[in-house]
């Protein structure tokens, strides 16, 4: 059993079996992070370039840790310090990287489609660490892993994703993954932040947050960004927090054993109140821990070669 594509550009191309393979593999790799020597030699001698054109400390460090735990060599290209600042095109950057022959390129970019672009111009395996508003596959995978750990299953679960769906790659990847694994997903936000046609991705859509949270097993809150206020998507953060923020009363509508998730970083007091972010129902920090195991799993599975059926 292997991943069919040598890139991970998104959740969209993955079949259910491939998603489950990643989650099962992450399971087997998780214990490495509990050892004293948190390292295995599996990707020794392989080179991974972390091309973070859009900066991100948490995702980048999570990938870096995953790479190092597998003994791979990591090379970090951050936007501000790199040739991007001097106006080098993505194409030229890709060609320069190619010339250094990395095995993997982990790319985060503010333009949707940038990983697809790299996949056309590089021979390395491309891993999408977030491209514009399109997808963030490893986030969705670690979210699913976290849900599975807490709920033992994904099929039949009811999940609500609340916030700025329009600009969220995390939302899109999660909708695709969770529905593919048989969960029922509802997305909720102010109508200005709900993209047209999102229901065609397989979820229910509502702008009424109380309705969205009714009886759900998983509440996933998304970060709201200040610049969206300036573009007229909603009048003030205060109003957003009042109408859509997760507080104890709202959370009370969810199932008794519901869990709270957030891709981070959280805006305390805006989309989520502190008592909930830090409370027993919150698995936000587990998500971060799981991120390393899931990213290790992705690297491990993409590192294989051709067609042979592996013996166990």
């Amino acid at each position, binding site marked *: 059993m292997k991943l069919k594509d040598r890139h991970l550009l998104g959740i*969209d191309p993955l079949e259910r079996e491939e998603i489950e393979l990643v989650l099962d593999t992450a399971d087997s790799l998780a214990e490495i992070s509990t050892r004293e020597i948190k390292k295995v030699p599996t990707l020794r001698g392989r080179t991974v370039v972390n091309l973070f054109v859009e900066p991100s400390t948490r995702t980048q460090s999570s990938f870096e840790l995953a790479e190092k735990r597998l003994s791979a060599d990591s090379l970090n290209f951050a936007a501000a310090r790199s040739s991007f600042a001097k106006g080098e*095109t*993505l*194409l030229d950057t890709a060609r320069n990287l190619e010339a250094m022959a990395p095995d993997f390129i982990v790319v985060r*970019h503010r*333009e*949707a*489609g*940038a990983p*697809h*672009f790299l996949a056309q111009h590089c021979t390395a395996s491309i891993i999408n660490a977030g*491209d*514009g*508003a*399109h*997808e963030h596959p490893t986030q969705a995978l670690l979210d699913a892993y976290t849900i599975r750990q807490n709920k033992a299953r994904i099929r039949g679960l009811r999940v609500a994703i609340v916030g700025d769906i329009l600009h969220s*790659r995390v939302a*899109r990847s999660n909708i695709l993954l969770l529905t593919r694994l048989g969960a029922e997903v509802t997305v909720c936000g102010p109508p200005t932040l709900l*993209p*047209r*046609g*999102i229901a*065609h*991705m397989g979820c229910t859509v509502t702008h009424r947050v109380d309705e969205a949270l009714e009886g759900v097993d998983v509440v996933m809150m998304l970060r709201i960004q200040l610049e969206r206020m300036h573009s007229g998507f909603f009048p003030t953060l205060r109003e957003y927090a009042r109408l859509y923020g997760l507080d104890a009363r709202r959370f009370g509508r969810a199932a008794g054993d519901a869990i709270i998730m957030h891709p981070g970083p959280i805006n305390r007091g805006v989309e989520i109140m502190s008592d909930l972010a830090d409370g027993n129902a919150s698995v936000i920090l587990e998500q971060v821990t799981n991120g390393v195991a899931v990213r290790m799993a992705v690297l491990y599975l993409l590192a294989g070669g051709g067609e042979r059926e592996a013996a166990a």
Partner: protein
Amino acid sequence: MKLLLRNGRVIDPACGRDGRLDILIEGGKIVDVGSGLRSSDAREIDIAGKVACPGFIDMHVHLREPGQEWKETIETGTRAAAAGGFTAVACMPNTVPVNDSRSVTEFILSRARELGCVAVYPIGCVTKGQDGTELAEMGDMAEAGARGFSDDGKPVRSSVLMRKALEYSQIFDLPIIDHCEDPDLVDGGVMNEGEVCTRLGLPGWPGVAEDVMVQRDILLAEYTGGHVHIAHMSTERSAEMVRRAKGRKTRVTCEVTPHHLVLTEQAVETYDTSAKMNPPLRIEADRQALERALADGTVDAIASDHAPHHSDEKRVEFSLAPFGIVGLETAVPLCLDRLVRRGVIPLDRLVELFTVGPARILRLAKGTLAPGADADVTVLDLERRVKPDASRFASKSSNSPFLGWELQGAAVMTIVRGKVVHDALAGGPK
């Protein structure tokens, strides 16, 4: 120089002609159209099995000269036109500098005379500098040879300016050609707003942003009595509004591009920048509505919106790529294959859309093969199989989503003022 085109099927909607006829050309004019014509000293060209039409006019192209000659020049652009079967083009003013004055209009015309191989009709800016605040010198440009006014690339955003343009242009009886787009509603959109753009995570350009401007332009045309021409119409709702306005006898005309008739937003699925243009490819319902509008007479012209860009410019992230595709060399094969062969419209209607329609809109004494008319002839071969090939384009650029498509039907000979500027009669597999 005498030319005799023999044995072809002549389709001339302006004269209501469709039959097996010969065409005699002398001194750059049509001398006679009839059966069994003879001439002692004419060069005879046998076009048996082919269709001879009045020279096709592409009323919306970007020739990029002056200022952006790495994408295209008047010389290469007109050669591409000739190769595509066009005897005349109208070129948009968003050059560098923009064509908002007599001097740039004259520059374009003189380059065309010197190096161009088809007729070139400049469209002048509506506003000075194409910046949307003050009217440009329409009178001066009209005198110099401009055949209409447009800020294409951009809309005429200010309603009061559009009103004044529609009023003022009546002095010269020339159309205001509007690129209908409400920039605030578009807000950085790069493809049609809908299912596909949501899935791809790209900002959307909603159809309603075109509709509100089309409606505004129709209302202003009615109010002022001016002539508004809707450029590259792309939505079902716009087509319906134009249809109803025509029913009220409003002076509105419109054009549609071949790519909006053939492709939908699905073409963008792989972030392919060769499917990125403005207005964007829409949904299937829009595409079919445009086909119906072609058939029922709502649409007046097909125009390619030929927009060349260098491959360096298109080989970037989708959102950063410039809008536009080339179209001069693919327009006719696409229309013959996807519209005529598939029965969307009959051949004579297609000919109208490339001849009578544009000629009327631009007030040109063209679009017919009546004796005394300019000898502009487009010869079509409905059986010719073609496969657009970037390496064989006459245009400098090849940013097209149609490369490699197998199409049946092409323009195989183009004659401008009695001179053969493109001859592919003998070539190509049948």
